């Protein structure tokens, strides 16, 4: 069965292989990792740990960044 992650509320399908780490996922999605904060299953992942953070099937990932606000 295909391997999935839930990213920012949307389920995404990665075929038979998930990106190995959070860094790889961000690269695949073309997101500059210097500008985002990540939470996996409710746990905040420090930016310095993106490269060592392994991804498990069906993980719930939130990727957030700053936007204009008052």
């Amino acid at each position, binding site marked *: 069965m295909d391997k999935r992650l839930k*990213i920012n509320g949307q389920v995404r399908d990665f075929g038979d292989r998930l990106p190995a780490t959070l860094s790889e996922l961000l690269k695949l999605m073309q997101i500059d990792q210097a500008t*985002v904060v990540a939470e996996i299953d409710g746990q905040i992942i*420090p930016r310095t740990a993106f490269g060592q953070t392994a991804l498990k099937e069906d993980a719930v990932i939130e*990727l*957030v960044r*700053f*936007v*204009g*606000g*008052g």
Partner: protein
Amino acid sequence: MDKLVIAGQEFESRLFIGTGKYASNAIMAQAIEASGTQMVTVALRRVDIDNPNDNLLAAIDRKKYLLLPNTSGARDAAEAVRLARLARAATGIAWVKLEVTPDPYYLLPDGEETLKAAAVLVKEGFIVLPYINADPILAKKLQHVGTATVMPLAAPIGSNKGIKTRDAIEIIIEQATVPVVVDAGLGAPSHAAEAMEMGADATLVNTAIAAAANPIAMAMAFKLAVQAGRLAYQSGLAAQTRQACASSPLTGFLRNE
């Protein structure tokens, strides 16, 4: 102008700027520069997966401006605490503008949830600047749990209506042991000047600048108004009277009496 001190950090400017609603990042950057501010607010949102490279922070020089992330969008204390923690992971510093607004129509802050979140965040080492209704009792409670400021609203966010909560803000200023920042609803430089004349320590402005026909010039107008208002407050405003009180002598008229 005298310096503003919040949580031990000094600020030359008493005007804080929100970064929402600008037509472009370039105009925002110029407006921030023109305002003379040293503190800008930002919001945290999900990355737009289809447009992942829109980067607000590229337009803000963090050596010149302290980044104050807000918890906008939080509907209760738990959501606000979560956003504050994410913001800290993003900025590397613990400053946060705490706002909890369960009702999107008027965006009025929930005092009870704000107080709850403030207590948690202060314990976790955050420097908490809470956005509140102009409620003097709540302001005292927040001070008591250790917030760095209190930020009463002048009118609902983005309404540009000016200071509709004047009497309550005066009481908050009178009783405050932390800086009072008037936030939300200031629609014109004269409103900001009024807040400063009342003795507010600073003002926070977003929509009135961002939605002006010329945001850069309007930012400068707010800068001057805040400076004028502060100077007026420090100079001691002359007393108001009900009756006229002549400025010119009431003797030596060119008539026989």
